[in-house]
């Protein structure tokens, strides 16, 4: 057997059956379930008279619709309320463990999976949510699926899959102070484009990736989907194993050590072949800010909004023109001169304790600028919130003028009451700046938590390293 990539190892361990047409029946170890993409899957099970194949392999949580304040009042939007109640009743009917809205462990599905140790190295993890790529940070093969496939996994514990190509992205050397995982992944997407990873599983490697905490690695893998990748992966090391030790759903005692011994082999072998390799110099990566309506429309903080006249390709030039029109920006505008109306710190990309610490460090002793209409901090889970409060981070934020909210997806996609109004501009730590993503007509600039905090206290985008 020759040198294998991490992806090939994970794939080979999960093939139940190879079909002659080249597809494989792949075993799924873990499924995370949320309220938006599961009701039709449960309904399908019921209509066909089927039961879940392996109930314990599923963990459910409502996150997209949940309000981030006045939880005692419940959900006021009747349509959202029905969707969350439908998840509650489906989980009760089929015996699936669910962290309900009132549960202190409730939170964003991609935050709680790792936090609970439900996500383990060497597992296949799926969820009806594209940001399932997050869990690849643990050396798990994790990818988003549609609702038909959610039903398929519930009923069979398997999926029909075709092997992907492999793309190695190596971030060589170390990033400078103030440059975070979010800046790394935005720079990667700027480099390879939003379709750069299509058909591929990306393995992130290099010293700069190794140096990241597990939280930072999750941020990087989370946005692999924004590069179009099927999944993102990072090889297992001692950080991965120590993060999981003692987590509620992780194995314990001897079983944990047995697992860990195997997990340490979950790295790409030296000399393993990748279909494509991209190398980037970590030291050249600066804090990033998106200016347009696709995550690839990104520049360093010292940059400026591009001019469509400089673009040779007519389709791309038209894309830039449309994005500038939507974003209300003139070509050549310095990123530093852009002034957000709202600040959102949260989402499955950047709502973990390290993210909140990074933002609080910038905010401490400062005030939110008068021009900012609303600055929100939405922790990723009830446990993140409790940890942050134990460290006093909530007081740092509220004293500066931020609102400290309850956990959920919130303004990342605005399915609850937290949204942008038409024309409003937001510095957001989320993952997508698509038209209308944070509310119809809303204008999103994606940044790291530290950069969002810096924009909040100065009223415009600024290099956090200069504060």
């Amino acid at each position, binding site marked *: 057997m020759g040198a294998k990539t991490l992806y090939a190892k994970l794939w080979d361990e999960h093939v139940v059956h190879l079909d002659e047409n080249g597809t494989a029946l792949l075993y799924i170890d873990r499924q995370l379930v949320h309220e*938006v993409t599961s009701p039709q899957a449960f309904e399908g099970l019921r209509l066909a008279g089927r039961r879940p194949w392996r109930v314990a392999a599923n963990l459910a949580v409502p996150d997209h619709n949940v309000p981030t304040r006045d939880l005692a009042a419940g959900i006021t939007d009747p349509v959202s309320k029905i969707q969350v109640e439908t998840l509650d009743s489906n989980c009760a009917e089929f015996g699936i463990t669910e962290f309900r809205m009132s549960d202190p462990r409730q939170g964003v599905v991609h935050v709680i999976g790792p936090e609970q140790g439900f996500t383990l190295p060497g597992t296949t993890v799926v969820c009806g949510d594209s940001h399932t790529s997050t869990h690849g940070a643990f050396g798990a093969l994790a990818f988003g699926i549609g609702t038909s496939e959610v039903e398929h996994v519930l009923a069979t514990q398997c999926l029909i899959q075709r092997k992907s190509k492999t793309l190695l992205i190596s971030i060589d050397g170390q990033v400078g102070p103030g440059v975070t995982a979010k800046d790394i992944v935005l720079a990667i997407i700027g480099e390879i484009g939003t379709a750069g990873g299509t058909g591929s599983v990306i393995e992130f490697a290099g010293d700069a990736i190794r140096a990241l905490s597990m939280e930072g690695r999750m941020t990087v893998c989370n946005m692999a989907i924004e590069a179009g990748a099927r999944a993102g992966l990072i090889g297992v090391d001692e950080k991965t194993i120590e993060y999981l030790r003692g987590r509620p759903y992780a194995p314990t005692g001897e079983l944990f050590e047995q697992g860990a011994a195997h997990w340490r082999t979950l790295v790409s072998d030296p000399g393993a072949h990748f279909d494509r390799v991209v190398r980037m110099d970590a030291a050249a990566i600066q804090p990033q800010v998106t200016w347009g309506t696709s995550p690839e429309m990104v520049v360093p903080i010292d940059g400026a909004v591009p001019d469509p006249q400089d673009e040779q390709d007519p389709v791309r030039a038209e894309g830039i023109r449309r994005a500038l029109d939507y974003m209300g920006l003139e070509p050549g505008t310095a990123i530093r001169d852009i002034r957000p109306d709202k600040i959102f710190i949260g989402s499955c990309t950047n709502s973990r304790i390290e993210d909140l610490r990074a933002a609080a460090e910038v905010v401490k002793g400062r005030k939110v600028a008068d021009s900012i209409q609303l600055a929100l901090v939405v922790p990723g889970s009830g446990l993140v919130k409790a940890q942050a409060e134990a460290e006093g981070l909530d007081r740092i934020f509220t004293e500066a003028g931020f609102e400290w909210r309850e956990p959920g997806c919130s303004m990342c996609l605005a399915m609850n009451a937290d949204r942008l109004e038409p024309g409003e501009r937001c510095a957001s730590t989320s993952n997508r700046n698509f038209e209308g993503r944070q509310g119809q007509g809303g204008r999103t600039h994606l940044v790291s938590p530290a950069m969002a905090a810096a924009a909040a206290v100065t009223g415009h985008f600024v290099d956090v390293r200069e504060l």
Partner: protein
Amino acid sequence: MEPFQNFTGIVAPLDRSNVDTDAIIPKQFLKSIARTGFGPYLFDELRYLDRGEPGMDCTHRPLNPTFVLNDPRYAGAQILLARENFGCGSSREHAPWAIADFGLRVIIAPSFADIFHNNCFKNGLLPIVLAPTIVDDLFARANGAQALRISVDLPEQVLVLDDGTRIAFEVEAGNKERLLKGLDDIGLTLEQADAIRAYEERRRREAPWLFAIAG
């Protein structure tokens, strides 16, 4: 799922790259717990001038006259033509549900995002990848005064334009069979139930930590 039948249909040219699933079906409509009824809200923010909400009667909403699906030339279109990376972003299957519910059956683009591409085949939709130069040519034809009509032949994997031009396309064998027979994936997989159980037995021995979900 209904088997895919050959047909001849009008092509609606949506001249955009990176059309994301948030654009195809905005988030407020994802609150539905049904699989049907999304067609009136397809491309809601591009198609209408007002703000769409779930349950709204769309028959009297103000239409955006510049949006392709509101152009009388393309009324009744069954084929959507778009640019690269169509269907990127969120995994929401509501996107192909809305497209199919609207009456579209084929999407032609130079490339598709993976999850969306996969979701199409679960819902009787045929996504066709063609070379950018061919897509350019189709846009030029579709933008003419007369709408372009294309005959789609899935068994033969060929598109026939109204002037007789034939364009071959690729489709993965399993996906082709799934569309042509309208197969139920879950039923097929459950035919492998013994293999799945055997796999689980082996894994319980080899990797017992995977099955120790306490909670």
